[in-house]
């Protein structure tokens, strides 16, 4: 197999000769292994090796992009990207000019998943499956494990040449309980960056998950409507990602005069206790990195400070067009896609309320824990819980079936009236945008309370 470094150097020479306003390339090699179970049976074990790259060119504001697995004929590929860009471009290119960076970032791997034998991983999953099946009332289970090791090279005509490496591990467990044609399920997702160890100690969580699925069969369904809702750190993390995070991605905003007006810096989105940050420079989380896919060093960006919009996430193009500083948020899921503006590790900064303070004066409300998913259309968003309880007279009361919550960014953030002191980052999520799924991100929050939150139900 061709050495990626050498291919990178050949590409660097080719890029310098091109007549484009900006031109960059990515190369990537990765190994991936996965194990899955359905029910008590092993479903599959597989190993995947992937090599590929791309070239992206900018001419007069127009972009060309060529992606490939075949590393031969690089000259034609580079030329094609430039030709496409020239076909598109009819304006003036605006692109933030950054200083060239040459770097080699090695992953600081604690326990390398790639070096653990398949049989040992399988043994662990057998234990997890056993934890599910030891609960009576379980109809079936689903386990999906995957680990990847990835090396990427970013280079551009300006002389940047950045090699980065990372390892990722993810696990998803689902327990399904069924009775009389009624089916309920409970799930858990965990992820880790450069370290297998967090994946090793999920026995108790997985057992609880199975018990939860069975309990849901007898749980009542909540009536739909507006409720005072308390979210646990995990679901509140999904909430901040969907409710506000996506709206702060500048590629939605930079060429849209109306959205720009809505997203004017200084605009009030929430109460003075609300602070939201996106930071890839927080160490060792799933969304962390040194350099983004345009070679920009990672930063920490205050999106909301004391309730006011103070920042947004940028690529080099959106930063230049909005005359703001780049934030290092241009990311691509792999070499098949160009980098676009993405979140990294997004979280609500902890406040001062304890969980008890938060629920004590709620006469009738809902406590939602864990997550199932979330989606946004910028103004409207939905997110769904994995576990839900009623709150009555200041106390957590009976379990109800999981719910979907929905909100409107312009009033739901304003309705957050209590922020807890117990920040927790959820590593089990991934993010989808523009056909690029699922990108490693993390999100987190302390417990939060939202007044008048719309909940779907019977």
């Amino acid at each position: 197999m061709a050495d990626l470094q050498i291919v990178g150097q050949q590409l660097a020479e080719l890029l310098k000769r091109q007549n484009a306003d900006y031109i960059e390339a990515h190369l990537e090699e990765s190994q991936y292994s996965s194990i899955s179970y359905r029910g008590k049976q092993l479903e599959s074990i597989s190993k995947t090796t992937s090599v590929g790259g791309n070239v992206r060119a900018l001419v007069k504001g127009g972009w060309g992009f060529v992606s490939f697995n075949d590393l031969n004929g690089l000259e034609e590929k580079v030329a094609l990207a430039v030709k496409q860009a020239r076909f598109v471009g009819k304006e003036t290119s605006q692109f933030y000019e950054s200083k060239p960076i040459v770097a080699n970032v090695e992953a600081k791997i604690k326990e390398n998943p790639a070096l653990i034998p398949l049989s040992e991983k399988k043994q662990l999953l057998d234990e997890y499956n056993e934890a599910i099946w030891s609960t009576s009332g379980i109809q079936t289970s689903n386990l999906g494990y995957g680990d990847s090791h990835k090396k990427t090279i970013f280079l551009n005509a300006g002389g940047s040449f950045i090699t980065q490496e990372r390892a990722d591990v993810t696990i998803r467990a689902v327990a399904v309980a069924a009775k009389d044609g009624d089916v309920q399920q409970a799930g858990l997702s965990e992820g880790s960056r450069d370290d297998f160890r967090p994946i090793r100690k999920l026995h108790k969580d997985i057992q609880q998950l199975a018990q939860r699925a069975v309990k849901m069969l007898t749980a009542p369904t909540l009536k739909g409507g507006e409720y005072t809702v308390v979210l646990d750190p995990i679901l509140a993390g999904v909430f901040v990602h969907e409710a506000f995070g996506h709206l702060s991605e500048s590629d939605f905003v930079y060429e849209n005069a109306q959205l720009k007006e809505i997203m004017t810096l200084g605009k009030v989105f929430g109460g003075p206790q609300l602070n939201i940050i996106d930071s890839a420079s927080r160490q060792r989380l799933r969304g962390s990195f040194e350099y983004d896919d345009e070679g920009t060093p990672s930063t920490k960006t205050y999106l909301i400070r004391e309730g006011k919009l103070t920042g947004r996430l940028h690529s080099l193009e959106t930063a230049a067009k909005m005359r703001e500083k780049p934030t290092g948020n241009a990311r691509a899921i792999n070499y098949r896609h160009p980098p676009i503006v993405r979140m990294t590790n997004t979280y609500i900064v902890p406040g001062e309320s304890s969980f008890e303070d938060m629920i004590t004066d709620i006469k009738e409300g809902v406590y939602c824990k864990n997550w199932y998913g979330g989606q946004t259309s910028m103004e409207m968003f939905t997110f769904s819980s994995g576990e839900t309880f009623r709150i009555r007279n200041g106390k957590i009361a009976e379990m109800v079936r999981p719910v979907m919550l929905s909100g409107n960014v312009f009033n739901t953030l304003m309705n957050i009236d209590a922020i807890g002191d117990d920040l927790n980052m959820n590593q089990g999520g991934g993010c989808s945008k523009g056909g690029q799924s699922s990108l490693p991100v993390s999100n987190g929050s302390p417990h939060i309370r939202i007044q008048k939150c719309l909940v779907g139900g019977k």
Partner: protein
Amino acid sequence: MEEILALAKKVAEEAEVYMVSSEETPVQFESNRLKNIQYKQSQSVALRIIKNGKTGYATATSMDNPQKLVDDAVATAESGTKVEFQFPSAKIFPKVDIFDAAVEKVSLEKMTELGEELISQVTKYSPEVICEGGVTKGTYTLNIINTRGGQAGFRQSVFGLGIEVQRIRGTDMLFVGDHQSSCHPILTTDEIVKTTIRQLELAKNIAKVTSKPMSVIFAPDGVTSSLVLPLIPAFNGKTVLEGASPISNKLGEMVFDINLTISDNPLVPYNTGSRPCDDEAVPCQVTPLITKGVVSNFLYDLQTAARAKTKSTGNGQRQGGLPSPSPHAFVITSGNVSFDDMVKSIDDGIIVEQLLGAGQGNMLGGDFSGNVLLGFKIEKGEIVGRVKDTMISGNIYQLLKNIAAIGNDAKWVGGFMSTPSICCANVSVASR
């Protein structure tokens, strides 16, 4: 491919080599103008072996190192799944036309022109909107060979055309749009423009919705995201075998409304969901799933069929890993009620075009819930405006048991689903 198969045969009892390659040219528009053109080349080879009665599986993007692929497959076979099936021998495949050489010949100029035409028609109707559009052409090639003499392959052309339109007034955001795909080039924008403008027209005003159960018309896109998503795992032979599908033991029973008929049909000429064989060289077929309300079949791949002591329905599909049962193209039979008559029959209800958050939640149990991203209010038989800040929830096994009306307006949604509008009474609606 033959080289890999030969190498694998040396170390394993049986082997299968699967190879796909694709070329795709997306032309993308942002903020009402051409923004970028891409060319994506990709290929992948997968080796499945049977060694000591167990499955081994490895994939790679490069054919450069067949030995590594074989070694990886052997490594996974050590702890692999017990094999209960045989690879298919040589078969006769149904003839289905899915390649049109004209797709590749559509020039970048023509693709750009189509995108610009879409945008200019919509912005002519409503100058305040911002459009994103895409015109894509591509070719997809698949080849499979196995050690039992089985072999299959096809080449498919794909053309796609679509627009997403954003209208922002103050902090109110509206999203409309439409998309078409075919194995033929789509050289007219009329239908997409018509649908999009109609949606903009209907969304002029915002109508008030009160929280209560009411009649809901699911337009074809709404049927897909709300009602049909939960049916996909329910008809998956694996879920059925595990007893986790609510219809696991309901084969031959009337579970749905007598007017509901659904089949998996991969044999519609030039539909992007069509193909002659599945991803393990089994011939594709039309499989009736619900016949006049009766559960009539489930979907199987080779391994699941062997475990369930039945035959593969040609639904073994790979999403990066080993084959698993998955529908090619759900086709819901049209009814006889026109969309307009459906609307006229409703005193107080809503139309759901797009649902945000579909697929989150207990899909397996048939539950769906979501925020109505695009929908309209019906009062006294007339559409009075757009719905906002509104959620609908329900369970498809309850709703599809008693359907109020099935439309005569079947349309393809993204190549994998053809459905008419479906009207259900008493759907839970929550609004603020």
